[in-house]
C-alpha cells in the first residue's frame, strides 16, 4: 500500500517549510521565466543568472503552490546553483526521467508543454542527491505535475535566447 510517507518525506517538508533561494534577481543580468499549473493554480517565478562561462551563478524562486511544487523548486535551486548549463540540462533530463512514468497519460487542464529536450540515456549517471526524495511522487500520478513544474520552467529558461 502506498502511504503518505512516500510522498511527504522529511526532506521535502523541510524544503517546503524553509524554502532555499527564495526571492528575486535583477533582470538583466538574470532571466525571469514563469511557470503555471492551471489544474491547481500553482505558479513559479524563476530567476536564473547565467554568467559568461555558462555557469549558473545565481537562482531565485518566487510564486506559490503546494508542498510538492514548492519543495521541488527549492531543491532544484540548490541543485543547479553553481552548475554549468550542460550540467543543469543533464539534471533536468535525469529528474524528468525519474518522473516520467505516467506523466503523459494524465492530461486535461494543465498538461505541461513538451520541454523540447530529448529524454535519452545521456543523463543516466547524473547524481540527483536529495532530489531522489521526490521519487515517491510517481506513486501519486496527479502530483507529478507539481514536482515537474519548476523543472519545466527551468528548461524553458535555458532554451530561451540569452537576454542581452
Amino acid at each position, binding site marked *: 500500500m502506498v502511504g503518505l510517507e512516500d510522498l511527504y518525506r522529511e526532506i521535502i517538508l523541510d524544503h517546503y517549510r524553509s524554502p532555499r533561494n527564495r526571492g528575486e534577481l535583477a533582470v538583466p543580468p538574470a532571466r525571469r521565466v514563469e511557470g503555471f499549473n492551471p*489544474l491547481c493554480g*500553482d*505558479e513559479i517565478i524563476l530567476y536564473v543568472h547565467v554568467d559568461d562561462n555558462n555557469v549558473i551563478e545565481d537562482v531565485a524562486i518566487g510564486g506559490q503552490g503546494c508542498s510538492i511544487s514548492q519543495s521541488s523548486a527549492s531543491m532544484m535551486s540548490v541543485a543547479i546553483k553553481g552548475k554549468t548549463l550542460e550540467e543543469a540540462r543533464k539534471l533536468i533530463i535525469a529528474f524528468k526521467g525519474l518522473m516520467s512514468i505516467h506523466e503523459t497519460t494524465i492530461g486535461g487542464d494543465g498538461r505541461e508543454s513538451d520541454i523540447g529536450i530529448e529524454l535519452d540515456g545521456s543523463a543516466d549517471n547524473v547524481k540527483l542527491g536529495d532530489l531522489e526524495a521526490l521519487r515517491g511522487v510517481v506513486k501519486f500520478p496527479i502530483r507529478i505535475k*507539481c514536482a515537474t513544474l519548476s523543472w519545466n520552467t527551468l528548461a524553458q529558461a535555458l532554451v530561451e535566447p540569452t537576454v542581452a
Partner: protein
Amino acid sequence: MTLPAGIKDDFPLLDQKFCGHQLVYLDSANTSQKPQVVIDAMANYYQTSNANVHRGSYELAVKATDALEGARAKVAQFINADSPAEIVFTKNATEAMNLLARSWGQANLNANDAVVLSEMEHHANIVPWHMLHAEKGIELRWIPVDKSGHLDLSNLDCLLDGAKLLSVTAMSNVLGTLNPITELAKRAHQAGALMAIDASQYVPHVPTDIAALGADFMVFTGHKMLAPMGIGVLWARANLLEEMPPFLGGGEMILNVTKEGFTTNEIPWKFEAGTPMVGEAVGLGRAIDYLTDLGMANVRQHEVGLTAYALRTLTERYGDKITIQGPTEPAERGGVMSFLYGDVHPHDVAQVLDQKGIAVRAGHHCAKPLMDVLNLSSTTRASLYVYNNESDVDKLADALATIDDIFSF
C-alpha cells in the same frame, strides 16, 4: 431523517475501500455517483431496446424512439416545462450553453450588445461569451460578488441598461450561494433583456419549477443528478427555440436536404444533429424517477440539514483554522463547501484526505474569475448529495486533524 436510511446501498460505487478506508465521496458538485437502478436501466436499454431513433419502421426502432422521447417527457415534467418540445438534449451543460451562445447569440447579438454575467460563473457560462466577444465584439458585464459570497445587486439596473441577456448561475459551484433567480429574471425582463440560468448545480438539488423561476433559458447536466455522463439539457421557451437558427448540422435536424441547401426539422429535433445518446437519456429518465421517488423537497431538506451540520461541526472543531467560503446560513446555500485549512495548500489537504478514503476536490473549480475576486488560487471543496450523511461529515472532520501531523510547523 428525510431520506431513506439505507440509501447509500443504492449506490454500488460507494461500497468500496481506498487505501484501507471506506470511501467517503464528497465531490458530487463535480460529478454524482449513480444508483444501481440507473446503471441497470442503461444496460437494459442496450440489452432489449437499442436501435437508432426516428428512422426505423421496425418494432425495435419504435421502442428506442419511445425510450428517447419518454425520457424527454420526464425531463420536461421534472422542471415543469410547458412541453417536451422545449427540451433539447446535448452532451453536457457546457454544450447546452454553447448552443445558446452560438444559435441565439449569433442571431440576436451584434457588436457592443451587452451580456451580463456574474463573477461567480463557471467557465461554461463565461468562455462561450468570450468567444462571441472575440467574434462579434459583444460586451460582457459582470455582477460583482460581495464578501459574504452573495451577488452585489446594488448596480444591477446600471448593468442591465441596454443589455440583451442576463446569464447567471442558480447556485455557485464554489460558494454554494443560491442566487435570487426569480428577482433577477424580473429585473432582466424589465430592462428588456432575456434571462438564462446555469442550473447545473441547482436542478440536482432543489425542486425546480421553471415557470416560477421565470427564466427564458436554462441549462443543466445529467451526470450531476445521478444520471450518466454524456447528456445535458437546454430548456428554452418554445417560441424562442422556434426562432433560433440551427446549431450543428447533419441528420435528424433536417426536413429536407438538396445540393443547394437544407430546411430544418421542428423543435426540439432541429437542435439535435446526428444520432442522439439514447442510452444516456434512458439513464437520465431513470435518475429523474429515482429523485422523484425520494422527493426533491426531501432532497433539499436533507441537504440543508446536512450542510448545517457540516458548517457547525467544522467550525466547532477547527475554529479560525478553517475558513469556509460562501453564505453562512444553510437556507441560503447548497451543500457545496469550499474551504481553506490554515495555510496548507488545498492540493495537500485533498491529498491527505484521499489517504483516508475521503474524496474532495482541490483547485479552481472551473471558476477562475471568481478565484481572482476571492484572491485565491485554489480551495478544497467538499460537496454533499443524497447519499451523504452525518457520519461522512464526521469522517471529514476527523481526517482534517491528521493534516497537522504532517504540516504543522
